[in-house]
Structure formats: C-alpha cells, structure tokens
C-alpha cells in the first residue's frame, strides 16, 4: 500500500511503539523504511545566561553536547538496526525544529507515510520538546500515522 515509510524517533517508549509499527508495516508491504532522528535546535539556547566562561570553554561544552547527542542517537540506531535487521532501514539525522525537520525529511526521502509516536502523559528523560500538531499538520507532504 505504502512504498516508502519514514519513522521519527528519539528512542523514548512512545517513539519505540512508532518504530515497531513502522517496521511491521514496512515488513507487510515490502516498503522501504527510513528512521529519522532530530537533534533539537533549541540545544543552541542552552548555554543560557553563561557570561563567565571563555569562548574556548563554551565551544568545548558545545562539542561535548554534540558528541553526547551523537552517542545517544547512535545507540538508538544500533538498537533499531538489531531489532529489524532484515528490513535494512536507512538512517537520517537532521538538526532543527521538530515539525520542520520531519516534513523536510519526508520530502527529501520521498516518503508516502510518516509514523510518529503518541504524546505521552509523562515525558521520558531527555530534552523536553513535543511535536506541535498545529505546526506539523499544515506542512505534511503525505499521510501521518500516530502509533498508539
């Protein structure tokens, strides 16, 4: 039915359900599966009101955060790769606002279905940012499936 599925995940329990649903659908339909991870652009705001450190220390912090995000993202990808090895998914990484990153990635990969997790009542540990439906829906280039 769908030939090219994009699943957006940051590895939280809700997102893992989206991964599983997307993998099952890709398996059933023989669709190509792309796993998208978004680095939240708001990390650039997190040095906050630091004014004491030198630019060297601030850059060191920025490098460290980038490395940490990269490490956490690779761990998520590794887990997915092991879980759905036969599907041989592609992995995409983007930096920016969540909604914009998902729709841009869907266009670039030619996705005909986007799968995301549901809004969880209690957010999992990590950077606190949730998809805003009002920003996402008008930009969608293809159907959106929300994994229960």
């Amino acid at each position, binding site marked *: 039915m769908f030939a090219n599925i994009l699943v957006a995940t940051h590895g939280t329990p809700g997102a893992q359900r989206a991964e599983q649903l997307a993998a099952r659908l890709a398996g059933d339909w023989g669709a190509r599966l792309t796993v998208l991870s978004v680095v939240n652009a708001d990390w650039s705001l997190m*040095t906050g009101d630091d004014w004491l450190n030198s630019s060297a220390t601030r850059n060191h912090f*920025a490098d460290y955060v980038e490395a940490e995000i990269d490490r956490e993202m690779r761990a998520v990808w590794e887990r997915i790769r092991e879980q759905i090895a036969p599907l041989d998914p592609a992995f995409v990484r983007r930096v920016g606002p969540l909604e914009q990153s998902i729709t841009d990635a869907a266009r670039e990969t030619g996705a005909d279905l986007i799968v995301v997790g549901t809004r969880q009542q209690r957010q999992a540990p990590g*950077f606190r940012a949730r998809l805003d439906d009002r920003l996402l829906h008008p930009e969608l280039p293809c159907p959106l499936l929300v994994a229960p």
Partner: protein
Amino acid sequence: MAHGELDRPGCAPVWIVSVIMLAYAALVQSGAVTDALKYLHVHKEMDTMVILGYVGGILGVVTGVLLNARRDKAITNFDTFVINTIPGILFIVLLAMTIRWFAEPLVVIASKGLEGAFGFSMYKVLNLNYVVLGILVGIIITNTWGIPHFAASGVKTARFVLKMGVILLGARYSFAELAKLGMTSVWMIGFFVLGTVFMVLWLGRIFNQPKSMSGVLSAGMGVCGVSATVACAPVVRARCSEMAYTIGTILGFGVLCMFAFPTIGKIVGMTPTQFGAWAGTGILNSAQVAAACLAYNAVDIKTLKVGEIFNITRVLFLPVIVLVLAMWYGREVGQKLSFKEVVIDKFPLFILGFLLLFLMSSVGLFSPPSHYKGKYLDFSYSQRTEVTPEELEVVKGAVAQGVPGLHMEEAEALSDLAHQRQLAGNFADKDNSAVYDTTARKRMDALESILARAKGKEIAISAELKSAVNHAVKQVHKKSKTIVALTDAMMWFFAYGLIGLGMQITRKAIAQAGSWPLAIGLISGVTKATLSFLVVILFVKEVVLK
C-alpha cells in the same frame, strides 16, 4: 550547536535604528521635547541623550553603507567581529535608552497612579528600575518574537560588555574596602559554595541519582549557575538529559531569586553591605547578582560593589570546584584531566582586568592627590548623584510637613533637593557653569548647616531625613572626573549587558527543569538562600563604602 555561523544582517533595520537615534538626538537638541522630558524627570540627562543619539546614529549610517558595499563579498573576520555585530549593539543601546529614559519613568508614574487601586506601589515592590526592566524586556523579546536576525551577532557582545562592567568596577574600591569585604566574602562564599556542592552530592545519593547528574547539578547550584554547568558538564561526563535538567532548574530558580531577593531585602531593611553579601552568596548566577544589586539600589553603587566582591570570590572558586569534581568523578571512572584543562582553562581572565583597574586606581592613576576624598565636588546632573527613591520619599515628606526651625535658605535647599532628587544647580543654568556651581554650593552649605544644627540639637529632624540629606551631600564628593566617567560608563555597560543577558534566558531552556534534579535543586537553593540570609543578618555589619 553553539557554533552556528551567522550570515550578513540586513541593511534596512540598521537604517531604521540609525534614523531613530539621529532624529531623537536632533529633537532633544532642538528643545522640542524638553517639557516632555521634564515631565518624565529625565531632562537632566539631555546632554547624554544628544551624544548617544548622534554617535549611535552616525555609527549606524556608516555600518549601513559598509553593509551595502560588502553585500556580495565574502565574509571576513572584519565582517564577523565588527560590521555584523554593530547592528545588534545599536539595537541594545536603543533599547537601553528607551528603557532608561522612557519605560522606567512611565512605570514610576503609572505605579504611583495605580497605588490607590492596588494598595501598594508596584514599582517599589517589584523594584522595576531600568535594570530589571531591561532584563524583562530581553526575556520578553527572546520568548515572543525572538531576537531579530539583524541583531543576533551583536547580542552576543553582552557577555563581553558585562565583563567590561565588572573590570571598570575595579576602579571604585579602596584597599580597606577590598580587604574587609574580601575576607568576609572568602569565608561566606567558601562555606556556602562548598556546603551547597556537598549538599547536592549528598541529596543525589539520597535520591539515588547518577554521579554525573549530582556532579553537574552541584556545580551549578553551588558556584555560578549555568556558567559552572558549562564548565563542569564535560568533566563529570554528564548526559544530555542531565545537562538539560540542570540548566532548566538553575535558570528558573535564578530568575525567581533575581526578583525575590531585592523585595525581601527591602522588606527586612537590609543595609547595602548586607544585601550585597546576601545576593552575592545566595543567588546562583553571577549576572543575576549584579542585576539584583542594581535592582536594590541603582542610584549609587554601594550594593553593587559589595555584591560583586562576593561574586568575584565565588567565580574564583569555580576552578577549585571543577578540580574537586574532576577528582571525585575521575577516581571512579579512571578519567584523568590535566591541571591546565581543569584549573587554567577555567580561570576567569577578566578578573585580572578588575584587579588591574583596582591597582591603577589605588596608585592614583585616575585621581590626582588634590581630588581625593571630597576635595573635588561634582554637581553635574547624573542619576548616580541622586538620593535613593526611599530617601526621596523621606525628603518630600519633610518638605510637605515642614521642618520647624529651618532658616529660609535651608528650607529652600531641602525643597530643591526634593524637586531635583540631587544636590545640584538650576537646570536653566546648566550651560553657565559659574552660576550653576555657585547655586549648588550655596545649597550644599545650607544642607550641611541643617546637619550641623541637628547635631548640635538646635533643630530636631528624624534619623531618616538626616541620613537622606547626608547622602545627598556625600554624593557630590567625588574622587576625580575620570572615576566619575568610568562609573557612568560602567552603569551603561551593566544596563547593556543585562538586556543582552535577558535575551539568553529562554522559556524552552527553563522548561527543561523537572524530575528529581528539580527537587534537589530547589532544596539546596532555598537552603543556601535561607542560611546565608540568617548569617548576613546576624553577622555582617555595615562597611564604610565610598
């Protein structure tokens, strides 16, 4: 993430800012808005308005021309560090001018008008002076429309300008003050910084938090907020979520403290020394210490001087805490860091600038011997030479009720103090320095006469009125014109820096606070603020400040 390149800002906003500044300077110079400025009670700073307006406007025009000329050329270091930053610098200067000369006076007028309806003065309770308003405007801009693209590069200069403000402050300390305050601050900061660090580490164990979480939170809550988090996170190998929790907690708690501390300090009647010591110890972020001290008293810089000494002492503890955490964390994971990485790289170099200015001032480089301690009188208009808002109320009350036994010249001088808020000549004579100074000196003699007669029990005045008059007289005793110029520049640097800093405080960053780190942060932060309050009230006495 923080390495993002900023491309060239647009020309149109620079032209708009320049035209506004030039037009404003021309309007003020022409005298067309003098009545409005008198109504707002900022007419005494008309000279500064004209100079800032023209300088900013011309700089903006030159920048606009350069931006246009270099539109299609490759971006060089000159573009990145000079041309691209000027639009943002002018944007903040324009905001600072608007806030200082329009927003603050209007808030005062509105606050007085609404006093009857609310039953209290919002201006006084929330300390809504230009410093607090500047930070609020910065926070509002960044969380609503966002920092305009053309200003993004310039806003980053706020950090540098704040450091410049602290460096200039170095010229205002005497050896005696620095020795006395320095010793008190070392003891208090040492106790509370180390105490908070160990308390957070202990609470982290109680709440079963990972060592990396406790480590990064302890630095932030103990030393200097986000700055310490930025310095310590790589050392304790904090995870992304842990850094986010810590920064969110610190930012949220810090903003609350910045507003709560001055209000509490005024309610309990803290002296400048006590409040500076409390803010310098209890508030997490170093810039928020400066903001709270200026919110407490932006008229003279007594409170700021005390707060900054405590703040600088705390900043000096940063490398020590990084070292302690590196040893504490490294022992477990086998991580080794060099002395350079831990201590030398984290040493705040701008403190050397502060010490240099202090030494230059101490050897008399800015103050010729004849200008020392009151031999030089400065009657020029400046917010710095005004009495505090509280003192002004006392003087106005005394004038309204009348002080029995005052001679005519004394009563007139007191009335003029209530009218002008400072000991000065007449506004109409400001361009004729001989007449202006003669009037001011007569008023000073009259005010000193009130003090002398009150001391000799010839007349009876309240202790508050005596203190207010004494302060007004003291405010015109200055060391030298250079020091006065440095102080005025410093106040602008702080106003500028704090607006820019407000623009770094985002709702999204504060929203990261949560879970156990928030609980631990609140427990340790409130404990530190409460205990340091008690210690200050009980043990810190007033220090004579000049």
